[in-house]
């Protein structure tokens, strides 16, 4: 794939990039080529930052110059609420909040995609033909090189638990993780991990003992790690970490060896999509080999397409980590994540365990 070449740079000129922090309304707009016949439009709402989305949209627009594409980057919460308020606004919804996306599809808000690519998409990465996982992003730990030099390698959860239990004093306040009470992603990981192993609660207690700092986003954690405020980061989104830490040799990204959750971004076409044909073309592109290649090479998101191999693909990650990878299942179990009482119960337990260690 030719990186921003002459062709691509021509499109770059057309991009109108509006960043308005107050409403977090970032959009990308690719108008239809004037000489490409009858124009259609496509509205994509996504919880995916512009630098990652941009190569994907460019690739799509190169293949479909007759489609005027408007991408709007929203937070997962805003995206969900905006859809519920106006279900006929967007043609494609793309979000990392798996449970919310699943809930929409479960209630029949999604339209089935019947293209050959959709038929061949791996069964574990889709639900019916309505909901498609398009990325493969492991949840990782970030460990400062200094910790490794002093206390030895941290390869997995068991190592981390041992580290926290033995050297809680040395790491007081120098560990950071998601706050499940305020972060949706953190809550999702907590619920998944608690299902995977009862020892998770020991880990929570150990984190509490080390007076772990609680953050709302991966970016916030990465900032603290880069600045050196934190030495160990637990449960960071691997795709973001990989991008930010490319030039931070003192911070090592650890994909745990015992088990590693893998989160996926789910895409769906709303039933009331205003431009269903364009939406189908876009989703088909996202799961095509072309789109997935862009995803693997030009973004840190991780491609799922089984035909792809090499860095940035699920295949490569599976070869490296094998059975340890635990992709969050796209299934009705996700609905439990959204249950209010469940949330209350889990958070109560989490906070109790966390406080127990202090």
């Amino acid at each position, binding site marked *: 794939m030719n990186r921003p070449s002459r062709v691509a740079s021509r499109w770059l000129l057309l991009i109108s990039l509006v960043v308005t922090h107050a409403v977090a309304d970032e959009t990308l707009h690719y108008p239809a080529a004037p000489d490409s016949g009858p124009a259609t439009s496509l509205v994509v709402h996504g919880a995916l930052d512009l630098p990652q989305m941009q190569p994907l949209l460019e690739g799509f627009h190169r293949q479909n110059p007759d489609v005027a594409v408007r991408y709007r980057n929203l937070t997962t919460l805003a995206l969900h609420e905006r859809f519920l308020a106006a279900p006929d606004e967007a043609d494609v919804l793309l979000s990392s909040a798996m449970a919310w996306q699943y809930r929409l599809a479960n209630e029949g808000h999604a339209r089935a995609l019947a293209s050959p690519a959709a038929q061949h998409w791996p069964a574990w990465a889709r639900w019916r033909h309505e909901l498609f996982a398009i990325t493969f992003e492991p949840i990782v730990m970030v460990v400062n090189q200094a910790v490794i030099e002093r206390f030895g390698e941290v390869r997995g959860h068991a190592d981390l638990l041992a580290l926290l239990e033995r050297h809680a004093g040395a790491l007081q306040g120098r560990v950071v993780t998601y706050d499940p009470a305020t972060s949706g992603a953190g809550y999702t990981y907590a619920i998944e991990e608690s299902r995977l192993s009862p020892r998770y609660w020991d880990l929570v207690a150990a984190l509490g003992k080390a007076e772990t700092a609680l953050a709302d986003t991966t970016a916030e954690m990465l900032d603290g790690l880069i600045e050196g405020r934190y030495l160990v980061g637990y449960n960071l989104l691997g795709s973001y970490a990989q991008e930010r830490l490319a030039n931070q040799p003192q911070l090592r990204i650890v994909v745990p060896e015992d088990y590693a959750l893998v989160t996926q971004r789910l895409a769906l076409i709303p039933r009331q999509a205003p431009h269903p044909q364009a939406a189908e073309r876009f989703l088909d592109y996202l799961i095509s080999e072309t789109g997935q290649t862009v995803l693997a090479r030009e973004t840190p998101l991780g491609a799922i397409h089984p035909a792809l191999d090499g860095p940035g693909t699920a295949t490569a990650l599976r070869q490296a980590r094998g059975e340890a990878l635990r992709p969050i299942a796209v299934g*009705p179990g*996700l609905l439990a994540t959204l249950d209010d009482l469940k949330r209350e119960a889990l958070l109560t337990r989490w906070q109790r365990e966390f406080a127990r260690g202090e």
Partner: protein
Amino acid sequence: MKRGDSLYRRLLGWLLLPLLVLGSLILIQAWVDAQRTADRAFDRLLEAASLAIAEQVQWQDDRLWLDLPPAALEMLATDAQERVFYSLVDRQGRLITGNALLPGDPRQGAEDEDTLLYRHIDWQGLSLRQGVRRTRVEDWRVREPFEVRVAHSREGRDALAARLWRANLAMILAMAALATVGLLLAIRAALTPLTRLRRAIRARDPRTLAPLELSLPRELAELRDTVNELLARMRRVRANQERFIGDASHQLRTPLAGLSARAELALRQDDPMRWKEALIAMQATSARTARLAVQLLSLTRLANPEYRPDRVPVELNALACQAVRDHWASCHRQGVDLGVETAGDEVWIHGIDWLLAEAIGNLIDNASRYGGRCVTVKVEHCPPRLIVEDDGPGIPEPRRMLMLRPFHRDRDDLAGSGLGLAIVDGIARTHGARLQLSTGHDGRGLRVVLQFPGDTS
């Protein structure tokens, strides 16, 4: 021949039609069964999931509390990736938690009883199967009823039902094919004796009237016996005809031989007076012979069952008077008293006037020939009857039926042909009339009654 007229086709049609109806019914039944089986199998999931959820319901902080097990929801989705819905509802019908407020159990049951209801619902445009479990939290102090409502879409059930039905369909179709083949063979086998019978009839010498000898199933044996009876009747008819021809030729040979002998005798003489006598005698014989030939002709014609002359209305009184007028002169010459008694009203029947006249003539002739001195022709009304009565010696009771046979004469006499009563009988049969022979009114003579069918109209 029309296509539908084949016995084979008719049997096939009438057997295949019920088979087809039966097959359709079985298919419908199989479909209903498949759906019921699939529902039963998948309802277990609703039962298990609702139980798994209900077990996690607790009474905590003065309210219902649920730590939802994700596995309970995953249980509801099979490979078919059903849509899954659940809700926990308290006694007032308020949603405690869940992803959809599903409708509840409409039955008003006793609150102490655990109940489980399965049913189909249409919920927001989705066709769902729902399980509603009604139970309660048992605590030391609290007994709080609640409902767990779970539902999932029908893809898995439909797929299973379709699979079951397809399996059944294949079997039913195979059975139908076997049944059809069996039916074809059975019909063919059942119709084989018919072919055998046809071949047996076709292979016969067309002149033979011998009975058919072959073993056949009961239904066809009846047909064979009927044909054999017909053949036996034909044999009898042929024997009668042969005897009649023999008798007739014998009857004609005798007067012809007499003529020939008389002529020979006369030719030996020279006296013209003898010749004249011989000629007179020969004239009488030839006249009698001619009359015999006429009678034989009319008897043959009457005996032919296909001889159906047109009947016209005939008035019996007029007919009787005419017959008496015709025969009065000859009777008078023989010294026979011929009279007529007509009915008061006109008596009309359907008949052939010249045949009836011939019958009356024959009877008058018979009566005068066999010793009757007083012959009366009577017509009666209601029922229409034609009666000829005489005061001759009569015929004894046992011999009366014999008299109806051709060439049977009560005693030897050369003047009669022995055909008179046989002809009258033939005429009576042609008219559908009954012929009765009885004794005359004062115990003497013969009374011959022709009773015609119907009223006088």
